[in-house]
């Protein structure tokens, strides 16, 4: 900005804009007195809705990311074992064999 500009700007600034009419101030006063400032409840409601949504989203993500094995623990595996040969423990098929023997008439009797 040159000095010339500054001088001209100072000349402009020396001009005083007309003051506000009293009637205008009265109208603004009436407007501001008539209606109270808007409540901030809508803002608070919006913020709490956003916060609730964020918390719900976090919970859902946490549940989805949790490993299924931890959620539903599987029972321990069942191992089929064969009794050692020569033991007195019954073996698979012994029961049906015994039933068949009992129902078959003895040819020698």
């Amino acid at each position: 900005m040159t000095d010339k500009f500054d001088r001209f700007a100072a000349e402009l600034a020396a001009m005083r804009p007309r003051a506000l009419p009293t009637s205008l101030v009265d109208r603004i006063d009436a407007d501001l007195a008539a209606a109270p400032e808007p409540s901030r409840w809508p803002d608070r409601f919006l913020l709490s809705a956003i916060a609730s949504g964020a918390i719900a989203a976090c919970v859902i993500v946490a549940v989805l990311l949790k490993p299924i094995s931890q959620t539903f623990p599987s029972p321990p595996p069942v191992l089929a074992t064969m009794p050692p040969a020569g033991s007195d423990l019954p073996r698979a098929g012994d029961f049906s064999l015994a039933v068949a023997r009992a129902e078959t008439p003895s040819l020698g009797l």
Partner: protein
Amino acid sequence: MHDRDTDHWQQWLDRHGPALLLFARQWSATPADAEDAVQDGFVRFWRTREAARDLLPYLYTCVRSAAMDLGRGQRRRMRREQTTDRREASAFEFPAEQREREAAIEVALSQLPGDQREVVVMKIWGGLTFAEIGEALGVSLSTAASRYRYALTRLEQELSAEVSP
């Protein structure tokens, strides 16, 4: 962020009202329209000021927006013109000894393009910085500064052409 601590509306109006009225006149067809714009814009500003980042540019934005809204509503202007007396046309208070020069300045100011005129009003009579003007108008600081420079150059040319025979 100045003026944040001034929390009574009358202090705001006392400090910025005359410049706001002059500013609103740049966008209004009549002085009555400009008063309506200041009224609507100031009330809007005061009720929503908590949301503003910088209060002074926001005040000017509200008044500018109100003036533009009112400019679209011709019926209200017609009604007010019928019910209110015609006020003095000048937007300035002239001392008698300077009346001619300042009247010429006001005419030259009114002939500036709108985007330059509003920057001059905000800068000189509103006391806003170029950054604040840019924020209020939604333009960059350099754009606001260049509009101001063009406007002053043009005003000087207009006035010197008027003085020279």
